[in-house]
């Protein structure tokens, strides 16, 4: 569950925390697009380091490291699948060739960049801010509410998952035992109570909301209104430049892979 920990917001204040969520989100999306546009290792390595200054400025290193550690398991699976399937179903040469290895690592790194940037976003953006940002982007209030509620419940669910895991371990369940398939099946006793609990909770929440007249007024106003400030414009500018650069490179400049670079 440690990967979820990396998305849990803590109420602190820093330059990064004070940025407008819309600007931050734009930046994360640009990172996302850039990572998708690149499939070669060198630019992805570069991309991996882009969010780091934000992590440091926000002072969320510990949480960030925890989330990355949590993502390692999935990263490993992605690496494995890429490696196996590229080998089996494409014309890549024999195992273990450097290009094959590099491609798999690049795909894994792409995933890590995505987790990394979203983790920074969620670690430094309060759910309230996020909801405001969505509303001010003219997204229907129902969706904004659903979204912020979902984000808010992630830590609750993570905690519940931990308790369920403990309860099943106390009944002799060994998560780490057996082959790969067995290990996946080991998670059924954890997932079912978790899902049932989440459904029950959402029904209760719906009832509680309706009994407090949710959606009674057509037009809502907000006490706080988000406004873009200098830093936000700066971030948006950087993002736009990055995006242009990324698209330009993607269209016109073939990037050599690390294997080719090294063979010179």
């Amino acid at each position, binding site marked *: 569950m440690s990967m979820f920990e990396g998305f849990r917001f803590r109420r602190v204040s820093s330059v990064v925390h004070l940025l407008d969520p819309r600007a931050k989100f734009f930046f994360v999306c640009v990172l996302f697009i850039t990572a998708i546009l690149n499939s070669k290792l060198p630019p992805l390595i570069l991309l991996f380091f882009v969010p780091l200054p934000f992590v440091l400025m926000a002072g969320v290193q510990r949480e960030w490291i925890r989330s990355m550690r949590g993502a390692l398991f999935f990263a490993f699976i992605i690496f494995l699948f890429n490696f196996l399937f590229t080998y089996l179903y494409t014309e890549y040469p024999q195992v273990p060739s450097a290009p094959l290895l590099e491609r798999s690592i690049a795909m894994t790194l792409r995933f890590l960049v995505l987790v990394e940037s979203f983790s920074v976003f969620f670690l430094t953006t309060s759910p309230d801010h996020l909801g405001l940002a969505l509303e001010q982007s003219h997204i229907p209030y129902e969706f904004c509410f659903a979204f912020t509620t979902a984000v808010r419940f992630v830590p609750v669910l993570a905690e519940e998952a931990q308790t369920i895991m403990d309860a099943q371990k*106390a*009944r002799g369940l060994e998560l780490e035992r057996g082959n790969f398939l067995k290990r996946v099946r080991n998670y059924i006793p954890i997932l079912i*109570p978790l899902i049932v609990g989440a459904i029950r909770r959402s029904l209760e929440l719906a009832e509680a909301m309706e009994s407090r007249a949710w959606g009674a007024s057509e037009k809502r106003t907000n006490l706080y209104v988000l406004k873009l400030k200098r830093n936000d414009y700066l971030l948006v500018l950087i993002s736009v430049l990055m995006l242009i650069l990324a698209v330009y490179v993607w269209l016109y400049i073939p990037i050599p892979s690390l294997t080719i670079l090294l063979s010179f």
Partner: protein
Amino acid sequence: MIEVRDLHFTYPTGVEALRGINLTVRDGEFLAIMGQNGAGKTTLVKHFNGLLKPTAGEVVIDGVSTRDASVAQIARNVGFVFQNPDHQLFCETVEEEVAFALRNFGFKETAIKNRVDWALNLLDIKRYRETSPFMLSGGERKRVALASVLAWDPKVVILDEPTIGQDHRQKEKLRQFIVQLNAQKKTVIVVTHDVEFVAESNPQVMLMSGGEIVAEGDAREILTDQKLVAQASIVSPEITQILSGLPDLGIQKNVIDVHEATSILLDLLEVAS
């Protein structure tokens, strides 16, 4: 036997939940752990089956440190019934649910069948054998959870807040059941802040506050000590409050049991008339 030596535990978040616990639970003992929310009760008992490992100090069960054994190994002897049955029920039928742990522990199919029968009988839920646990009432789900632990007949049974959210009848049934378990020579450890429950079952009581043990003794000793009770944010049983509120009539006041109080008051009436 469970031996706890200078146990400290700090959660990864930095919360220091246990600060130097020393405790011995002998075989066949009936122990109630009481104290306010956040006192560290759940954290302590999670050390008894190895779900949590000490940050410092040691928990030794029948001579083996919990550091040197897996949860599954320890759980074979130490059963743990969680507070909320919804955190463990997941099978399609009650029967499957009760058999789950038995399969994990590698019992043979015939043994599993016998033990499931035995446990369903024990908790009087035989008629729900084929029912989905999700269709049952709260009290019944609690009993299924209990059956699913007792089925493998662990030497020690730990119950975390067993009486929470149960109606009076369920609670009394559960209480009698727990007392009976102990009478059958099982070590029973109950985490609770249900004062009436403790007053009626008369276990050894351990009071916790802020991650430390503040008092140990039998139920009467602890529950009638106003200072201790206030320190742990619980209240004495009502009957104790009534007696201690009376002027000095020369009667015994450290009473927690309703029947005992009744006979004391009847004696008083007889003397008066």
